[in-house]
């Protein structure tokens, strides 16, 4: 029997619709759509058409699904692509006139890229990325799974908040995919004892954790070291003697857990040993001063100086070589596992989808090559979770995440402690408001909106941005604004100040923060 390779891609963008465009906001979503989602789905369709086994667990956060489904976003995305194309054309002319042919050639490359993406988005996808992946799921070997409604970091959330996050994660999925979700992606692989009960209650069959959650030992460092002023707490985990080469049933519970394989993750993510830092690949951080386009290759990843112009052909060749190398390592890994006595080892690789294409420009080509290589391997085959067979062994899993330090540090530290207090207060506030849901239509609408504001406050993204000091002000502004909206809703409901002005405002924020509107009309839970 061949070893089973379980590939999991997790896709998420916070709810940025109508909350700023550039430099922070909608452009994050547009970049992921253009550079990752569309090229990746196209690659998967190509593989499917070629009869290649492309089994994949594909996770989409509900906030992302809602935005991809929005006609506003679809229209704005088309304008964004047009702008980029025009900008690339300007750059091409500019650099041609200066005799810088290599950059001009790259500008022309981008011009074609954005033109093609626009055409494909309109023609092939019918502007509907979600509808397209639904078709892919219905016809082929892609299994779409869901995650927490607004990608909350679950281990630290209060119990009611947890329920909302899981329930709405499921509801949004069912709305768009017309079936029950089987798998649940724990945001950031954040696991604690007890989360499985809520998952089981909602009909989920499996979820994923990081390798140290199963095996113990030192967590793999997924992200690079923090800033000089942060002291990362590294959690330590006792060695358990268990292995991620097989799935486990959570002890005495009816749900399966898959552990991420550390070697597989490391090879792709690590700044030191990973592929994306290769000198031939496109440099992410250096941008053209005029247009923001990325015309350079990594060259030397330790410095931003002396970057050479990117060469797409060379980089594609490199991606092929890396794919071959990666599948060889997988095969070695698989043979190691067999030596240890696993007759049919499972190897689970979990990645953020946006790594491929957006962060690592060549990532989609690499992944496509990997899938092909695995298809022709005598040692390996891609599989979906249910094809691995029922878990025969039981395990107790450690409280953990895939973030730096292995536990909650990235989302819970000195910088974010105050945010958790507010998240908890907001949760309590909503529990009181729920009592008004049986009232008038407007009251019900207000309670539904309060739930959306609560869930937006709970997004792990704000915590992540604050603790990493990335676009921190945007995150804090959003956090405080959603909190203020919740408090205004609460104050009006509690004091029965449901006047004309309130109703007008309610409709306005219903429009501003409009996710789940299809599913929560006046949404009581």
């Amino acid at each position, binding site marked *: 029997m061949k070893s089973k390779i379980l590939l999991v891609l997790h896709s998420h963008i916070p709810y940025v619709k109508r909350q700023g465009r550039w430099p922070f906001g909608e452009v994050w979503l547009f970049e992921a759509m253009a550079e990752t989602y569309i090229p990746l789905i196209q690659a998967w369709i190509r593989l499917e058409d070629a009869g290649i086994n492309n089994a994949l667990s594909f996770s989409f956060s509900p906030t992302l699904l809602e935005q991809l489904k929005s006609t506003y976003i679809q229209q704005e995305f088309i304008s964004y692509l047009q702008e980029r194309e025009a900008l690339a054309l300007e750059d091409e002319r500019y650099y041609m006139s200066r005799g810088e042919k290599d950059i001009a050639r790259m500008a022309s490359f981008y011009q074609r890229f954005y033109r093609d993406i626009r055409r494909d988005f309109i023609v092939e996808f019918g502007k509907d990325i979600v509808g397209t992946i639904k078709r892919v799921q219905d016809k082929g070997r892609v299994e779409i799974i869901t995650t927490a409604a607004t990608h909350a970091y679950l281990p630290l959330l209060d119990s009611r908040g947890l329920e909302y996050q899981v329930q709405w994660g499921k509801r949004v999925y069912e709305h768009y995919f017309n079936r029950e979700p089987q798998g649940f992606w724990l945001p950031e692989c954040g696991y604690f004892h007890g989360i499985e009960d809520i998952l089981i209650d909602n009909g989920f069959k499996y979820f994923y954790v990081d390798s140290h959650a199963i095996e113990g030992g030192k967590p793999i460092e997924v992200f690079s070291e923090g*800033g000089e*002023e942060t002291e990362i707490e590294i959690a330590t985990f006792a060695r358990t003697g268990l292995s991620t080469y097989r799935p486990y049933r959570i002890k005495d519970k009816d749900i399966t857990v898959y552990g991420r394989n550390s070697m597989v993750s490391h090879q792709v993510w690590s700044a030191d040993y990973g592929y994306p830092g290769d000198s031939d690949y496109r440099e992410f951080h250096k941008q053209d001063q005029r247009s923001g386009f990325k015309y350079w290759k990594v060259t030397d990843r330790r410095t931003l100086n002396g970057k050479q112009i990117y060469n797409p052909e060379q980089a594609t060749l490199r991606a092929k070589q890396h794919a071959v190398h990666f599948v060889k390592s997988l095969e070695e890994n698989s043979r190691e596992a067999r030596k240890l006595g696993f007759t049919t080892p499972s190897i689970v690789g979990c990645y953020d989808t946006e790594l491929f294409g957006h962060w690592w420009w060549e990532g989609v080509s690499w992944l496509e090559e990997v899938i092909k290589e695995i298809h022709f391997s005598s040692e390996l085959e891609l599989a979906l979770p249910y094809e691995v067979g029922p878990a025969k062994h039981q395990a107790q899993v450690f409280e953990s995440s895939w973030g730096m330090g292995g536990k909650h540090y990235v989302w819970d530290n*000195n*910088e974010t*402690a*105050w*945010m958790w*207090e*507010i998240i908890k*207060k907001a949760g309590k506030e909503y529990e009181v408001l729920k009592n008004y849901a049986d009232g008038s239509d407007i009251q019900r609408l207000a309670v539904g909106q309060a739930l959306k504001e609560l869930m937006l406050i709970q997004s792990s993204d704000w915590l992540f941005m604050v603790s990493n*000091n990335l676009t*921190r*002000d945007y995150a*804090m*502004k959003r956090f*405080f*604004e959603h*909190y*203020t*909206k919740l*408090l*205004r809703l*609460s*104050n*009006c409901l509690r*004091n029965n*100040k449901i006047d004309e002005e309130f109703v007008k405002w309610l409709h306005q924020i219903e429009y501003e923060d409009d996710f789940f509107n299809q599913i929560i009309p006046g949404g009581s839970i």
Partner: protein
Amino acid sequence: MKTDYLVKLINSGYLNEGIFVKVLLFSWEYPPHMFGGLGQHVFDLSRFMVQQGAEIHIITPRVENCPDYQEENGVHIHRVGSSYQEGENFKSWTFRFNSDAIREAVVINSRIGGFDIIHAHDWLVAYAGRAVTKIFEIPLVTTIHATEHGRNLGLHNRMQMEINEIEKNLALEADRVICCSQYMQDEITSLFGRPRDDIVIIPNGVDPDIFLPMPTDSRFNISEEDKVIVFLGRLVPEKGVWYLVNSFSRVLAEVPQARLYIGGKGPLLGELKRLTQKLGLADKVVFTGFVYHEERNYIYHKARVAVFPSLYEPFGIVALEAMATSTPVIVGDVGGLADIVEDEVTGLKVIPANEEELAKAITRVLNDESLADNLCNNASNMIASVYNWEVIARSTIRIYEQVLEKKGKQLFNLG
């Protein structure tokens, strides 16, 4: 239509003629919660605006032994959150306070039928100001009292850069920015890119009356022979107090009766004490700690000269306070201080960090009584005409009006 509140105000005699505007003011400091000049500023600004007919609510942090709600001089004071505890993570405390301030703002806003203006003082209340402004669509005015970049003569660590970012966004998002000097206007324009036209200069004021009460029982007993030099302020490098202590030994050589009173708290206290010991000045220098109103008045009353040798000073309210007590002033020729003091007319200016020049200036004032009298008289006249809270309160309300006019809202005019 006059609200109950308005009728009450008119009857209480607080109200002059003018405009009725409802203002929500966020401030980290309000008496007795005082660290620098911000608390005094907000205290005076708000009570004088009430006299002009404004309804003012202030949201400020809780202080031990102070009521959560209080009406003082017609100003509504709402204290929320927890008082800051020494050793607590300051940033966390600040943001938590912002969230409590928002909660309170939501409640009051609905109770009073909606504010016309939000006025946020400094970065510490930036998120409360921005969020309430955005969600309730109420215009935002902000007073930037100082900048992190200026306070630290640059940005040197993550926290300073974060604060700079918060100040920048506050300055850019506010409908109008108020600052207290030409110097600060330049700084806000160059640091944050807010066009000069959007930044209004309104100087700080002083109320000479508050310097009159004397303590019944002072901690200090200053004899008539002592020639007292006084410094009041936070003990931080930018205030230049280090140079003052060094120059004091030169002064003593000329004027043996000279005594130096250093009032205030701050991180440099220990180092300054060690410096006085090293220089053999320990019995000539008095570290008073933070001095409250009457005690401060007593020291000023006895002092022969007040010295503020700052290296950075956005405004320099301390110099005006000293002037209001008829004490001659010597200041570092920087920032707002440079704007306030006219050299040899309302005070003396010295090059910052120049100990020799500072010693000379102090000796001059201590030895030349007619010079001292002249400086005092000129300074008093200037205070009464320019740095007058009535004028400042009126100018501030005028800014509110302009902001509202731009948004197409008109205020209810009492006249």
